[in-house]
């Protein structure tokens, strides 16, 4: 069935299709309409799930961790400050190996307050042990949410589905809603096997372990994150075979003869598709790489896509103050082992923070500046920042 849905409605439809049993969430813009839609669905008698209202995001995540430990398929959603408040429990969730799905609608952090999109909230959860999947359009949001449950439950690791505030969350697009029977075949009910809180045989989970055992648990998370690279690809393929829509961790566009490859994520990639077409019409040799997963980082396909390219321009809608954009760091680390002759120069452009538009013109500027320079002007180049240092400070 084809419907016109916002990104947030797409998430809610996916949650309903996935047969989620427990939802706990706390409202925060721009995420709120996800749980409003779910609450409305529940009020209409659609979906057999418990909706737990809680007093904070920390509690929301705690509640779904408990639900998941109790053997239920569970879901929560948040944005920005809400995700920051969840931080402690994000670590807990992966350590406890609960296969949760969390929809994070990217929102810039405060202060100063902003409700608009950038990735700083999710990229700053990079070390929490969550798989992170970034989405470009509303169809991808729906499909990725469905796939997220399968990935999470195969690996017993939590998955964050990331979408851009307003560009996706509040913008409507035609979305194909898969047939529930097909979804059921793709995603059977959650089987917690023996790792759950069984009242008949209660066990203590996540309690203290001594130094002689702690590292093993961390190693297991790391090992399974490595496995996730294969599992995610496998789920993408299984989904494509059943539903005819294909996703990959790294997607390339016109890179074969490109002198500059622009690397981007999320909705920036959809602008990139238009920019590549227009610049190509004008004879510019631009290419694009879209990366879908931040964790686990798909180093091998990234290397494959960029090996031997002259210049890579990364558009980072986030910044790690004191370093540079997070995607640029990841790309550089992945490319380091290439021989000098095959390793591209990496240019990092910080753009679109706090919801500022990243347009075709941004791509043009990035392309022109990158082609014109032999080497990066700076570690990070900020696009369109209106600020002049006072004379005395220079």
């Amino acid at each position: 069935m084809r419907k016109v849905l916002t990104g947030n409605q797409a998430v809610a439809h996916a949650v309903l299709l996935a047969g989620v049993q427990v939802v706990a969430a706390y409202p925060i813009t721009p995420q709120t309409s996800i749980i409003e839609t779910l609450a409305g669905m529940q009020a209409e008698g659609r979906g057999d799930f418990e909706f737990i209202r809680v007093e904070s995001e920390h509690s929301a995540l705690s509640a779904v961790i408990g639900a998941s430990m109790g053997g239920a398929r569970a879901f929560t959603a948040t944005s920005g400050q809400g995700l920051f408040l969840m931080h402690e429990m994000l670590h807990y969730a992966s350590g406890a190996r609960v296969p949760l799905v969390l929809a994070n609608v990217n929102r810039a952090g405060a202060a100063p307050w902003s409700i608009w999109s950038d990735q700083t909230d999710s990229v700053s959860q990079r070390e929490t042990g969550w798989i992170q999947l970034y989405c470009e359009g509303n169809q991808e949001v729906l499909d990725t949410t469905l796939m997220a449950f399968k990935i999470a439950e195969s690996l017993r690791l939590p998955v964050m589905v990331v979408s851009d505030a307003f560009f996706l969350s509040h913008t409507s697009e035609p979305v194909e809603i898969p047939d529930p029977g097909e979804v059921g075949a793709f995603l059977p009910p959650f089987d917690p096997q023996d790792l759950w809180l069984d009242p008949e045989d209660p066990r203590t989970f996540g309690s203290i372990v001594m130094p002689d055992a702690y590292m093993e648990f961390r190693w297991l998370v790391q090992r399974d994150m490595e496995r996730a690279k294969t599992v995610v690809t496998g789920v993408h393929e299984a989904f494509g075979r059943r539903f005819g829509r294909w996703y990959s961790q790294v997607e390339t566009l016109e890179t074969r003869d490109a002198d500059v490859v622009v690397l981007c994520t999320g909705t920036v990639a959809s602008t990139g598709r238009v920019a590549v077409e227009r610049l190509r019409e004008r004879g510019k040799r631009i290419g694009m790489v879209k990366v879908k997963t931040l964790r686990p980082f798909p180093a091998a396909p990234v290397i494959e896509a960029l090996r031997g390219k002259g210049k890579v321009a990364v558009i980072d809608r986030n910044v790690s103050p004191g370093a540079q954009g997070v995607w640029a760091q990841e790309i550089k680390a992945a490319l380091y082992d290439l021989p000098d002759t095959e390793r591209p120069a990496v240019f990092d452009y910080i753009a679109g923070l706090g919801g500022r538009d990243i347009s075709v013109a941004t791509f043009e500027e990035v392309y022109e500046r990158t082609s014109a320079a032999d080497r990066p002007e700076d570690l990070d180049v900020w696009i369109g920042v209106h600020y002049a240092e006072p004379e005395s400070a220079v």
Partner: protein
Amino acid sequence: MRYVERSTGTPLCAASTRSSLDNRTGSWRFARPVFVDRVSPCSQRCPAGEDVAGTLYLAGQGRYEDAWRLIMRENPFPAIMGRVCYHTCERSCNRVEHDEAVSIHCIERFLGDLALERDLRVGPLPEPSGKTAALVGAGPAGLSAAYFLRRLGHDTTVYDDMDRPGGLMRYGIPAYRLPLDVLDGEIGRLERMGIRFETGRTLGGDLDLDSLTAEHDAVFLAIGAHGERRLGLEGEDLRGVYRALGFLERVAEGDFPPAGRRVAVIGGGNSALDCARVSRRLGAEVAVYYRRSEAEMPAHAEEVAAARDEGVSFELLCAPAAILGESAVTGVRFSRMRLGRPDATGRCRPEPTGEEFEAECSAVILATGEFPDPELVPAEVCGPGGATQVDGFGRTRLDKLFAGGDLAPIQRTVTHAVGSGKRAAAAMDAFMRGTGPDRVETLFRWGPEGNVTLDLPGEAALFPRRNPEAQVVGYHALNPFYFERRPALEAVWVPPQDRLAGFEEVVRGADEEAVLREARRCFNCGSCTDCGNCFVFCPDVSIRKEPGGFGYEVNLDYCKGCGICVQECPRGAMTLSYPEGDA
């Protein structure tokens, strides 16, 4: 476990290899949560000791018949009570501090009417005790005592000097407040339980207390207060001067006294207002004269308001000095009063100002109070003011003789009379069985008002009380977070202009939907309603369902005594106790 890494022996997630039940965390505890049944303020204040919290719980579940049965454990007249009781319960309702009191009387009336409509009966009677009790006076006290004695297995006979049973409920309360079919319905139920009625039998006439005492194992005197206080006024015996009770009795019998166009009612109690409102229905202009101000009026505020709505005027701070007229009343001369210092009742004493005025009228109704007739009771038990001296259970100094109702020094309301009869029935039962006062072990005392709950077969299970504690639950002991604020159900009154044509009932009954909603407003203070909040909130899974199905219990092997359950109990039905030594 399947999620164990074979190579390292490590489970995927840190998990105990043994059951966590091995860790008896109850040993950490120094405080223990306990389920208690506390007293709700409404029950504490109910002169008949009704279990309001339990009744409204059952009504709120739509279990109307069970709710009715729970009332019938304490009070044989739900339909009457829902109409004439002045519902002290509602004034003490904890909901007052939240939004508005629960409209308990509307629910009680609904349940009483439903039982009449469905012709419900109380549970089976126990084995006959072989004892016989005589009840003298078929008013609310005598009928209440008869009802409870019958339910405890005794043979009971009620004597009364009037033609029909009911006492003041029939002959004192006008039909627009208490319709006859309701009264007859609830008294008829007592007859069908096998209570014998001997009406038209007058104590001191064809009925002799000594022979009654000889023939029965116990006797309950509840003949009311019918002694007339003469005011010593000039003109007190003129034609057209009536006494309130006599006036109301004639009206009840359909023998409307000729009162003329303009009636002066003297007094400020409920009887005065009944006389005034009846006189309005008989077509007169009516004024009520009272010697203090409105704040001191003993009448219930709702009655005063209803009388005003019906066109009764009030003349305050005036006392009769003389009733004027040759052979029939033509007017009253009043002394203008002012308020002085408070008297023994705490109300300001009226003092004459010296000023006088005259009011024209065609009839005077004196509603200045009655007293028990000392001629009718043995001198040994007669106390000051003619009241019979009794203890809290209606026991007199004489063997076999018990007394209650308006004859005893209690507040003169139907509900107090019912409570008085119930307490006497408990004491008479103990006396007749020869178990002594210890038989009161079957009684369950509800707080400091001295009301008792009788352990009647069958009904205790309707709303189980597991761990009663004589402590009243205040608003502060509740968790108001769980209760949404909503206005109370308001009784619907017939518009005043439609009331005066006759004696049709003036307050309408509420419909089921409204009653259900109102019953659910009840906090059920101090009573576990099986809501499950303790179970939901316990972080140690140490609250479990009571094996019987209703309510919960604490698993002390694991309860750490954190107290979250107590905090989250919406209705104050849990407490943390700090026992010495082992908690």
